[in-house]
């Protein structure tokens, strides 16, 4: 009864590009994970509620719009309110180094910069959730 890793991949914000998010989603799927993809224009409320209902282990947010300093804390706060503070959260996108540090301090597990090898993201998740 191997427990499957479930990952929610979402694209918050106003811009309409989710290519990066889709590439990551596909790589994780090919690595044998179950990906819940919620698409574009996701609000923190949508993301947190979806993560809870789907009982995911990991949430990955793709951010290009610069709203990262409000987005991540808000999603984490909402997940906590809903009793899901155990969910691991990571991000991808263009985020200045000083912000990365701040985000990791408040509990974002990792920020992947542009051009990240998707294999690294798979590894990052596998390290936390080895196949049982």
């Amino acid at each position, binding site marked *: *009864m191997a*427990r*499957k890793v*479930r990952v929610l991949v979402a694209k918050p914000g106003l811009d309409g590009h989710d290519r990066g998010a889709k590439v990551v*989603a*596909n790589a*994780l*799927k*090919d*690595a*044998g*994970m*179950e*990906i*819940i*993809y*919620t*698409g574009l224009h*996701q609000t923190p*409320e*949508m993301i947190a*509620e*979806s993560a*809870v*209902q*789907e*009982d995911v*282990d990991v949430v990955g947010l793709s951010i290009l719009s610069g709203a990262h300093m409000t987005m991540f804390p808000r999603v984490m706060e909402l997940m906590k309110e*809903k*009793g*899901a503070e*155990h969910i*691991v959260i990571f991000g991808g996108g263009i985020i200045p180094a000083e912000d990365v540090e701040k985000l990791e301090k408040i509990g974002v597990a990792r920020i992947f910069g542009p051009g990240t090898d998707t294999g690294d993201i798979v590894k990052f998740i596998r390290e*936390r*959730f080895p196949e*049982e």
Partner: protein
Amino acid sequence: MRERPSIESLLELFADGKVSAAARLITILEDGGKDAERVLDSIFQRTGNAYRIGFTGPPGAGKSSLLNRVTAKFRAKDHRVGIIAIDPTSPFTGGAFLGDRIRMQAHSEDPDVFVRSLASRGSLGGISNCTDEVVDLMDAFGKDLVLIETVGVGQSELEISEKAHTVVVVLVPESGDGIQAMKAGLMEIGDIFVMNKADHEDAEGAAREIQDTLRLKDIPEGEWEPKVVLTSAREETGIDDLIDVIEEHRRHLDEGGRFANMRKKILRSRVRNALMDRMERRLRASDKVRELLEQRMESVYRGEMSPYMVVRELEELVSIQ
């Protein structure tokens, strides 16, 4: 990192209406085994109130988009809605891309709508083996309507007709879908046929084609005659008609004890399937059975024993009085 609260505490939170607890219990049901049985044992008494509607049809027909529209209408009628959206697991990687939620995010903040995506995992058809159990959980959680989306491939259409009270087959006017539907066995299981994407010009013709095919069916006097509805999930047309027909079918089942019979039939087949499953697993796990089988196979290879002689001997070994 994968520590989970105890089942007892999850069940308590579940009884208090906590969504996160319900969601984690669904995961336990999905993983199967003893824990799943414990969860089901303790919630089953609270089930029996949810009406189940299955939506099936070819990939991309607009099932999720339609569910989104239908859910809005049901919510306006004060139904509490559970949605189970099932997508196939890749047989090569074991992974799955569950994308049905994309179309339903409008309801993600409504506390009376609970959407759960499931991968088909070990099941051969497009449906997940634990679908019944997840429906039960949503039922016990207070959802009075449970909508189940499955892709109409393989055996899933047969399976959905064993799980849903009303089966809605969603088709699109694109080339030859009527024929495809007939081939795939969809014509036999639908209580309602939706020709979606009615904003395409050939939709009406395609709907008529389905209607003509349905007329060829021999329907006994007084039984349900499958209905055809034209919808556009995109332009939000025909959705009220679809709701009306679903409710009409539900009323039809309520007459003359049809619904009660159907419920019994569904439960009976669940018990039977679970029993067969369990027996098969126990047979496979038994060393005694395996040893005897291996021994006797030599005789079968040499032509000294027929396959049935072996089976009779094995039957003695596991005999049930």
